[in-house]
């Protein structure tokens, strides 16, 4: 059975997530400051678990985050690491586009930190 699109609307404390498997397009954005990050991110990671077994030829992960708390930061790293597994399927490509506000230098630095930690090709782009 093909994997369904994953759509989660944003709230004041949790981000929006739009994952369209057939297009290989994954978007996350808004703020991520829930007290219980596990409850929010675990189902998303489980969904990605299925996706990486049979990914689109090119997978693009767009990050449009405005704020996130420290416990979310670990799960965001997990999202990158999980999506990186598409490379296990021969011929698959994976790219991250990290957007930041022009007056938010820290968000730019955070993108650089994730790029260093994962070794994934990252485009860091002013929104």
């Amino acid at each position, binding site marked *: 059975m093909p994997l369904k699109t994953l759509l989660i609307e944003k709230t*004041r*404390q949790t981000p929006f997530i739009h994952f369209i498997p057939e297009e290989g397009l994954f978007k996350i954005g808004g703020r991520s*400051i829930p*007290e*219980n*990050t*596990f409850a929010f991110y675990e189902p998303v990671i489980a969904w990605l678990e299925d996706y990486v077994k049979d990914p689109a030829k090119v997978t693009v992960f767009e990050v449009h985050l405005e*704020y996130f*708390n*420290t*416990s979310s*930061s*670990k799960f965001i*790293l997990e999202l990158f690491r999980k999506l990186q597994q598409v490379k296990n399927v021969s011929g698959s490509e994976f790219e991250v586009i990290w957007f930041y*506000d022009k*007056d*938010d*230098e*820290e968000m730019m*630095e955070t993108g650089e*930190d994730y790029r*260093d*930690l994962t070794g994934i090709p990252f485009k860091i782009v002013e929104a």
Partner: protein
Amino acid sequence: MPGIYQTIKKMQNEGALLVYTGEVNPDVVSRLLQLAEDKLDAGGCPSGVRKRVFHILVECLQNLYHHATPLKIPGMDGTLSESVVQLRSDDTAFYVETGNYLSAANKEKLELYLGRINSLDKDQIREYYKKTMSENGFTAKGGAGLGFIDIARKSEEILVYNFIPLGDDVYFFEFSAKIKL
């Protein structure tokens, strides 16, 4: 209520924007963040500063929620579970200040941890954050063990704190993070 006027005057003189005392649960965290955002928006502060203040407040409140465990004091009824949080500003900076009770064992751990963070420069804090994020699992309380490192990174100032002994095994932990305008 005699005296409350003086209390309010004192708080106003100190630039208090938001003060809360009581139990910190997820509902309280989300309400306080909403109130703080409204205050910051109304104050017209620059968006970079606003983001850093909000970020630090998120981490401070989540620290209180995850770590302020009720303590029993021998010879006293009930437990000490109340925390306090204050957002205030003066002409030069915003301050996020918290207070909560903790045991002697937790005080030792926290003191070492905060001392270590304060000994690091900006680049070292960034490296420490990266290393902790990628190598460590979650703490028993469900935190990432990153809260104070992130607060130091966003504050770009020395973290100010104090432990007040209240008996054999109980301390009151005072904490203040400064965000320069």
